[in-house]
């Protein structure tokens, strides 16, 4: 049998939770992704970055975050891997290394994009 705790975990939704960041109420999911990308701003990104262990976002960080934001704004979805690589001007591996929590939980999350709809 599947025990009740495991059952709850498996069937639970994405855990929409409000948080106050930079004086604003923002809804995040269970992994800290934004429910509404419009809630994002640079101040919020700086706070989330500090929480993830990045004290100061460098120009390279901002270039990547802005590329995510611009791409999402134009296309309504996150960039494909090859577009991200082209847009950032560095490899995916380097992007992953720049953000303490990697590409998905680091760069994408800090850019305020929603959780990808993949089998996670």
């Amino acid at each position, binding site marked *: 049998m599947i025990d009740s705790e495991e059952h709850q975990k498996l069937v639970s939704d994405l855990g929409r939770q409000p948080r106050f960041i930079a004086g604003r109420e923002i809804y995040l999911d269970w992994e800290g992704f934004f429910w509404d990308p419009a809630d994002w701003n640079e101040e919020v990104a700086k706070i989330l970055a500090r929480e993830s262990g990045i004290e100061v976002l460098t120009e390279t960080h901002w270039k990547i975050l802005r590329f995510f934001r611009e791409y999402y704004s134009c296309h309504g979805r996150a960039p494909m*891997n090859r577009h991200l690589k082209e847009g950032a001007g560095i490899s995916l591996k380097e992007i992953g290394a720049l953000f303490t929590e*990697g590409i998905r939980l680091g760069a994408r999350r800090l850019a305020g994009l929603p959780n990808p709809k993949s089998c996670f």
Partner: protein
Amino acid sequence: MNDRLIYLDNAATTFPKPREVLDKMLETYIRVGVSPGRGSYDLAMQVEDIVEEARKKLARFFGAPDPNRVVFTANATDALNLAFSGLLQPGDHVITTRLEHNSVLRPLHHFLERGWITCDHVPFDCKGFVDPNEILRCIKPNTRVVVVTHASNVLGTVQPVEEIGRLCAGRGIPLIIDASQSAGKIPIDMMALQASAVVFTGHKAFYGPTGTGGLVIHPELDIKASRFGGTGVDSKSLVHTPSYPHRLEPGTINLMGIIGLSAGIDYITQKGLAAIHRQEMTLLRRLRDGLSDLKHVDMYCADDLSNHVAVLSTNVNGVNPADVGDILDGDYHIAVRVGLHCAPLVHHDLGTINGGSVRFSLGIFNTQEDVDQAIKAMASMRSQS
């Protein structure tokens, strides 16, 4: 970076499809693409023959005695839903395993949470195999069916279905084998396995198109209709056609898909299942051995590949599996499947429920060069971890 995509996600769907399969689909559909089993004109009869030949081919492939009990569905999930809906009654007990895909887990959960059935999920051992005796221990007087995946889509381990079939047959309990990851890779004789039904998909190791699958049913198992409609048979009756395959095939079937599925079976039969399996497993061993030299890479249930299909789950220490997938794709042009692979209980038991794993799955078109590139790419992630 290699410009050519190295496709190592064949457990999701095989890609590319053989040119022969695609040509056959197009050529046949252009020639005879009318409604099968409905009209009395020659072309309708001709296309019905093509569908019946596909049923016979599948019956031969699975060692099934009656081609009319080969039922075409949209995919394996559809076939499993059809089987569960037509078999299970309130108060029934079901035994399945923790290796299952959501195609099994979710339909059963649907019945379970409504209080219609009870269900036991048998664990797998540290090598990725279910112990048939664990299934035996779960059998109750009201056990209606045992459902077991033939090959795990996460671990690649081939389950001891012959022994499970023997235990089930001895107690008169139907065994359904989910052959989504095995059909087309290893021989399946449902009579020898004493299986009551085999579920298959057409778009994986049969090298057919997506949107194809089916249920092969033993003559002694009756599955009630749970969907109703036109069958082209006995049209004046408002009662749904009770005979197989029409009982479980309401509506016009996916003719182009079935043509492709049939051509795919021809393709792998011509190549030889044993030869395909040998080639894929040789590559998988090379991949496993190459990755085993990398201290920052973990592998799951891969020490002994003797009862496996060509699927290997891995993780890179300290790197989110999703990021590994992105790096392999974006930097190395290698396509793999990351995450939970729609098999949450497997990942729960492996301790990988929070991110899943990075799965490599090989197909007929993969080469030694593909595997070596994958090893090289995984090796390069050392500095990240």
